[in-house]
C-alpha cells in the first residue's frame, strides 16, 4: 500500500466530484434560487446573534433589547412608517451602489452625491418657491438628480481620462462637498434670522413632498424609491444597456471586443449612480428636512454600500435590505430609550451583517476571479 499522491481521500474525492457535477446540473437552478434568498436571512440572523452576545457581555438584556427594537420598528403604524421613512434614503444610496458595483465601478462617493442633491434641491425650493407644486417638485428633483450626476461624472471623468482610481477620488470629493456644505449653511445660504442655527431658510411649502399617511412623515419619496428599484432592476437585467453595463463590469476586454464604448459606459454609470444618490438627497430635503443643514446625511452614503451588497447588488433586493437597515436605525433609538443601549451598536451590527453575508458566500459575482479581470 503506497502513500497516495495527494491526500489519502483524493481517490474518493474524484468520484464524488464526478457525481456532484452531473447531479448539480439538474439541481443547480433550484439551489441557486433558494440560496439567493436564504443566505442574507441566515447572515442577518448570525449578525443579530453576535450583537446579542455583545450586549449580553456588556450587561444588557438582548431579549429586552430586541423586543424593544422590534416594537420600535413595527410596534404601531407610526413606527412602521418611520422605518419606511428611514429606509427611503438608504434605498436611494443602495440603488446608487448597486448600479455602480454591477459595472465594477467602486463609487464611494454616494455620501457627497447625496449632499449635492440636497443642496441643489434646497436652492430650487427656496429661490423658485413661487412655482406651483406640480412644476416645482419635479423641478427640484431634477435639480437634485443633475447635481448628483455631475458629482458622479466628475469622478467618472477623472477615471476614464486620467485613469485616477475612483475609490480615492470619490472619497476626496466627499470631503470637499461636505466642507462646501458647511460653508454654504454658515455663509451664502444661511438663514437670515437673528441667532439662527447654521442652516438654510425653509424651502417653500410648494416644494414639500405630499405625505402618504397624513399623520406620519411617510411621503411619496418612498414610493419613488420603490418604483426606481423596479426600474433599475429592469434596466440592469432586461435592457441592452444593462447587458453592456454588466459585461463591462465583468470583463472590459470582452466588452470592447463586443464594440461597447467602455469609457462612455463608465461615465454613464457614474452619472446614473450619482443621480440616484442625488435624488436621495433631494427627497430628504423635500420630504423631510425642508431645509439644508451642515449634516443632511448621517452616513447614508456609506450604509448604501451595505444595503446593496447584502442583496448582491440586486435592485429588487435593495427594497428589502433598505427597509431592514431602516428598521435597525429607527428601532435602535427606541432601544436606547427603553433598554439604554447605545445606538452606535447598530453600525457594528451592519458591519457584521456584511461580513457574515460574505462568509456565506452570497455573491460569487463580487468575490470571484471573473471580477478580478478589472
Amino acid at each position: 500500500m503506497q502513500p497516495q499522491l495527494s491526500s489519502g481521500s483524493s481517490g474518493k474525492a474524484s468520484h464524488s466530484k464526478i457525481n456532484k457535477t452531473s447531479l448539480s446540473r439538474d439541481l443547480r437552478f433550484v439551489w441557486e434560487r433558494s440560496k439567493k434568498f436564504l443566505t442574507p436571512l441566515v447572515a442577518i440572523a448570525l449578525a443579530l446573534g453576535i450583537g446579542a452576545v455583545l450586549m449580553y457581555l456588556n450587561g444588557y438584556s438582548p431579549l429586552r433589547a430586541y423586543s424593544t427594537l422590534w416594537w420600535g420598528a413595527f410596534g404601531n403604524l407610526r413606527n412602521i412608517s418611520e422605518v419606511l421613512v428611514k429606509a427611503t434614503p438608504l434605498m436611494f444610496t443602495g440603488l446608487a451602489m448597486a448600479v455602480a458595483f454591477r459595472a465594477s465601478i467602486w463609487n464611494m462617493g454616494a455620501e457627497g452625491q447625496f449632499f449635492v442633491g440636497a443642496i441643489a434641491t434646497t436652492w430650487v425650493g427656496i429661490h423658485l418657491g413661487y412655482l406651483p407644486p406640480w412644476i416645482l417638485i419635479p423641478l427640484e428633483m431634477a435639480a437634485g438628480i443633475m447635481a448628483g450626476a455631475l458629482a458622479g461624472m466628475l469622478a467618472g471623468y477623472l477615471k476614464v481620462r486620467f485613469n485616477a482610481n475612483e475609490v480615492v477620488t470619490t472619497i476626496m470629493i466627499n470631503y470637499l462637498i461636505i466642507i462646501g456644505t458647511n460653508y454654504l449653511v454658515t455663509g451664502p445660504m444661511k438663514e437670515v434670522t437673528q441667532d439662527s442655527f447654521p442652516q438654510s431658510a425653509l424651502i417653500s411649502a410648494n416644494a414639500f413632498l405630499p405625505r402618504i399617511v397624513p399623520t406620519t412623515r411617510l411621503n411619496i419619496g418612498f414610493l419613488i424609491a420603490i418604483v426606481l428599484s423596479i426600474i433599475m432592476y429592469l434596466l440592469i437585467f432586461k435592457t441592452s444597456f444593462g447587458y453592456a453595463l454588466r459585461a463591462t463590469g465583468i470583463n472590459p476586454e470582452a466588452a470592447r471586443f463586443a464594440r461597447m464604448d467602455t469609457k462612455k459606459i463608465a461615465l454613464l454609470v457614474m452619472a446614473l449612480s450619482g443621480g440616484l444618490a442625488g435624488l436621495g438627497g433631494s427627497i430628504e430635503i423635500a420630504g423631510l428636512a425642508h431645509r439644508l443643514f451642515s449634516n443632511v446625511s448621517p452616513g447614508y452614503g456609506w450604509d448604501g454600500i451595505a444595503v446593496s451588497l447584502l442583496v448582491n447588488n440586486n435592485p429588487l433586493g435593495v427594497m428589502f435590505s433598505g427597509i431592514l437597515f431602516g428598521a435597525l436605525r429607527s428601532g435602535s433609538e427606541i432601544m436606547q430609550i427603553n433598554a439604554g443601549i447605545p445606538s452606535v451598536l447598530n453600525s457594528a451590527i451592519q458591519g457584521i451583517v456584511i461580513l457574515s453575508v460574505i462568509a456565506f458566500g452570497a455573491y460569487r459575482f463580487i468575490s470571484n476571479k471573473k471580477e478580478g479581470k478589472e
Partner: protein
Amino acid sequence: MEDIQWIVGLQGILVATIRLATPLIFSGIGLVIAEQAGVVNIGLEGIMLLGAFTGWTIGFYSGSLILGLAAVIIVGLISGLIFALFTVTIRANQIVVGVAFNMLGIGLSGFLYRTLFGREIGLLKLESFQSIEIPFLSNLPFIGKILFQQNILVYSSFVFCLLAIYVLYHTAAGLAIRSVGEHPRAADTMGINVFLVRYLCVLMSGVGAALGGAFLSIAYTNIFVENIVSGRGYITLAIVAFGRWKPVGTLIGALIFGLFYAIQLNLQSLRGIVIPYHVFQALPYFMTILALLSMRGRAIRPKALGKPYEPSA
C-alpha cells in the same frame, strides 16, 4: 523682530506637520506593505478606531502605556487576521470587506467605550507619551525642535517606514512580497506561499493602522473620543496612491498632507483674513486629487492589486 516671529512661526508649522503626519505614516506604511502584496485594505478607518480605543482603555486600566501599546498591536494583528481571512482565503472583494471593517470599527469602539465607561463618569485621561529630547540633536538650531523633540511613537513611525523600505527593497522577503503583488502565479511556481505572504502583509497593515489610531489617543492626546480618528483612515488611502505604493512616496505624501493641514490651521488663525476658513479646510483634500491626477494614473501600481489569488485546482 518681525522675521524672528516669522521663523518661529515656520518652525511651529513644521513641528505640527510631523505630529499631524505621524498617524498617517503608521497606517500608510502598513497599507503600502499590504498593497505591495496585492491586497487593498480600505478598512483602515475602522482598525484605527479600534487601535485608538484599545490603546487608551488598556493604558487606562493598567496604568501602563507599554501594556496599552502591546494590546494595540494585538488588536491590529487580530483585525489583520480577520481581514486576510476574508480577502485572501475566502477571496471576497477587498473593497467590500474594508467597508464592513469601517462600520465595525466605529460601532464596536463606540459601543464598548460607552458600556465600559458609561455616561456618568464623563471622560477620563491618562498620562500620555511625553516627548523625548534626543541628546545634542535636539539642540540643533532650527530642525532640532522639529525632528528631535517628539514623542517615542513619532520616532517609531519613522523607524517603521525605514523597516518597510529595508524589507521591501533589500531583503529576499521583499522580493517575495513584490512578486506576489505583481504576478502571484509566478511566485507560486517559485515555491513562494502566496497566501502566507499576503496574510503576513495584511497583518502588517492591521498593526500599522492600529498604531496610527493609538497615536491619537495615547500620544498625541491622552483621551479617547468616539470617532477620534475623524477620517484619517480614508486620507491614508489617498496618500498611498499619491505615494505610488512606495514607502518613501507615502512618507512624503503624509508629510505634505500634514503640512497643508498645519498651514490651514495657521491661515485660519491669522487676524483679519477675509477668505472663509472652509477654503483652507478643503486644501488638503483638493491637493490630494491634484497629486493623483499629476501621476496620470500610469502609476506603477502592483498588477495583481485587488485581485484574489486562485491557486490552480
